[in-house]
């Protein structure tokens, strides 16, 4: 298998490289890709959508339909991980508790843990003592990360950024929190249900905007028909429409990253994990 694979791959690679001799040179301004369609986007983005960042305007307006299905793809991935992995078990098996005054770890089988006492703290079976340096730095940084993420989402019209990037950064901040403390602490703050509903909400904001345009006006996702609702002219309505769907993308991406992380890191149990 290995030898066969190597030979096939060398052949494929050789063939692929051989045929590149007819391709346009790297950075050739006269290549068909650069002169057929893209000049339209570059020259008309301001008059069509009033968004200087061409990537944003193409992503969320000219090819917004692609982007709607991009958010749908991550919804699909979240649902797929949930369907494949999640083990919704209510039964309590073996659990470990730390007696905080003494530092002794106790093991309780089943549900025999003394409910009323607050000197015990639940820990994972592969628990390691919390490191104060890591904990402190992460708690300090998470706020900055989230503020930066909001900046990236909101400033996508004028600088590199947008819904997807900002959503990833927010999701990463919450995953950083889960890593620096533990999975349970982060599930307590943003549960699985919230993550799932946020994901669906994000896609719904996007697709709902599209459907609203279709109900008011003519085409799916044609934001210019939102102008009477937003109280602006048709071009600024496109700019605002882009912003609305970017928020949808950000919410969906943020939530789905957390959702997938919960399921993958605990193999679906969401009881113990990183």
């Amino acid at each position, binding site marked *: 298998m290995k030898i066969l694979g190597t030979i096939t791959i060398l052949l494929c690679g050789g063939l692929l490289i051989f045929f590149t001799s007819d391709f346009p040179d790297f950075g050739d301004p006269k290549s068909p890709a650069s002169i057929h369609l893209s000049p339209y986007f570059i020259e008309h983005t301001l008059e069509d959508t009033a968004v200087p960042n061409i990537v944003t305007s193409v992503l969320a307006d000219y090819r917004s339909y692609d982007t709607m299905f991009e958010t749908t793809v991550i919804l699909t991935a979240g649902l797929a991980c949930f369907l494949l992995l999640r083990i919704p078990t209510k039964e309590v098996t073996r659990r470990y508790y730390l007696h905080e005054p003494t530092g002794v770890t106790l093991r309780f089988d089943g549900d025999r843990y003394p409910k009323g006492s607050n000197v015990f703290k639940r820990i994972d079976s592969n628990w*390691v003592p919390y*490191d104060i*340096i*890591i904990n402190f*730095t*992460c708690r*300090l*940084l998470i706020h*900055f990360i989230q503020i930066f993420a909001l900046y990236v989402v909101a400033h996508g019209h004028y600088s590199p950024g947008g819904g997807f990037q900002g959503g990833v950064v927010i999701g990463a901040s919450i995953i950083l929190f889960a890593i620096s403390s533990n999975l349970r602490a982060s599930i307590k703050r943003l549960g699985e249900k919230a993550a799932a509903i946020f994901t669906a909400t994000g896609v719904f904001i996007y697709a709902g905007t599209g459907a609203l345009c279709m109900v008011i006006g003519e085409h799916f996702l044609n934001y210019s028909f939102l102008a009477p609702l937003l109280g602006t002219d048709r071009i600024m309505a496109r700019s605002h429409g882009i912003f609305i769907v970017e928020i949808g993308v950000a919410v969906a991406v943020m939530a789905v990253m957390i959702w997938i992380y919960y399921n993958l890191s605990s193999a679906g149990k969401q009881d113990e994990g990183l």
Partner: protein
Amino acid sequence: MIIYIAGVLIIAGLFFFLVGSIGMIRLPDFYSRLHSAGIIDTMGLLLSMSGLALLILNEFNLGNFLSAIKIILIIVFIFLTSPTATHAIVDAGIRAGLKPWEKKQ
């Protein structure tokens, strides 16, 4: 004048980058390699980034000033995160039972 200071800073930063990279390859074990990786993140980045900030400020206007501020913020955050990350990795190495290298007698 500022250009020369910036140039010196950037070159000094690149020197630390070089030393750190050589160390990552040449040093004998995990912990000492991390030590040299730390040099890249702290000294190398500090010097070369502040050199860049100065270089931008050479032509002073609002946009360049904002860019310089962003570069300084990058330095601050790298100074917070990079030692923490190194610490966490060393911690994990010790917990996993990795013994530091000793010179053979």
